[in-house]
């Protein structure tokens, strides 16, 4: 590819010419907390539980 002259060629990040895809700001159906957590390896008090993220003080 380095052999190709591309100085004036614009990059294509996406094949579709769609821009600024908006929709009305309305609340639709969404997952319940219970369903959203149902796939997690570890859960505590309605939250995803992970190992320690900070050093001991």
């Amino acid at each position, binding site marked *: *590819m*380095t052999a*190709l002259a*591309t100085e004036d*060629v*614009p*990059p*294509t*990040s*996406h*094949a*579709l010419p*769609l821009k600024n*895809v908006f*929709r009305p700001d309305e609340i639709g159906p969404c*997952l319940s907390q219970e*369903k*959203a957590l*149902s*796939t*997690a*390896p*570890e859960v505590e008090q309605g939250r*995803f539980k*992970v*190992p*320690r*993220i900070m050093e001991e003080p």
Partner: protein
Amino acid sequence: MTEVWELSAAELGRMIARKETSARDVVDVHLSRIEALDDSVNAFLTLTPDLARATADDVDQRIAAGEQLGPLAGVPLALKDILCVDGVRTTAGSKILEGYVPPYDSTVVRKLRAAGVPIVGKANLDEFAMGSSTENSAYGPSRNPWDLARVPGGSSGGSAAAVSAGFAPLGIGTDTGGSIRQPASLCGVVGVKPTYGLVSRYGLLAFASSLDQVGPFARTVEDAALLLEAIAGHDRMDATSIPEEVPPYVKGLESGVKGLRIGVVSDWVEGEGVQPGVTERVRAAIESLSSLGAEIGEISLPSFRYALSAYYLIAPAECSSNLARYDGVRWGLRAPEAKDVVEMNVRSRTAGFGDEVKRRIMLGTYALSAGYYDAYYGKAQQVRTLVIRDFEKAYERFDVLLGPTSPTTAFKIGEKADDPLAMYLNDVFTIPSNLAGAAAISLPCGLAEDGLPVGLQLLGPPMSEGLLFKVAYAYEQARGPVDAPPLWGRS
């Protein structure tokens, strides 16, 4: 006598609607065939008999009540195990998703349910759709119904093998660089890579988001067109979904190819590494289209020789970003007893991802890193523009382009497994359509000198599915019925 599992989806749909058979019986026939033969094919990772029977029973009840259902109501389908079905385990062929049960339906599955299509199982694939043989599946490869020692192609190899084997007349795959068309070619079935944005990606586990597209497998062009009609269409849950009505594909199928200009991609038909039997079958298909009244010309597409290199920068770059979500926190595998969250991330990914996925994450991370971005990812995006320009120039002269789908017929399991570059070359003719977001179809065009199926590829601009189906249908009618794989027991 013709068995029920040999019939086309269109025929089964008609018989079910006329109550000549029931959706339940059709599903049961296919489930028995899977039970008898899938130990040797390994097309499925998960069977969903309860889901399939519930859908079929619902279809039968509604027909009994006098309801008019769609043309595919009651017709079984094999779903690539990378699309979410609410309550059914979804692995993407990866250990990192072992035990994952999605709490929602993908849009494609929602549409299939609405069409009354029973899903008989989740089909095998290369891990996260990365591969051309299903050998990268963490659950073992699928086998080609034409020769069980050979691969069915990939990444959607399980779906292609299932349709070829007579486990279901319909299948769903995804095509990021050829993952529908190449297995369709190797298994002797029809596979369609729709225009990017035609089918919703909501609920599809992402590999390379600017390239991934969902599409149909079938044994006839009409069945593939019916299935695409059922799954295509705008979806507000996918911001890249095309906000247009889906035209009817089946309606225009029979209008013929007279006067259509077909451009033969000459470097592909006679190219280096193309098996002689593939060249010969594709040449015969060109003759056939010519005698049907199509105008045949030749074309060379200079930028396409860089498409493979550009793809293997763009796809890994996007995959490295997409797969960062598998962090052991919200779903999937979590390595136990890590002392902190970073160690948990690292150990979960080390244990959960296979070699090819790790290779692509590393390549992609490197291609996106500071100081290399312009030379690799930026350059690849410029090549993508050149590929699109070459296509645009070609479509000034021709309505559709034509070539082989894959340079070779099905190869042996293990033959290319240790040589990633040889494996990547499988997709050299399919990748340009993905880079351009364009439509393409692969359909069987006979057997090569080794007795294995060859795929004919037809390529068109974005939103040209109707045109491609029309050309494919005209060729299919002229070609006549294809041979059945040995697994059908026809001798």
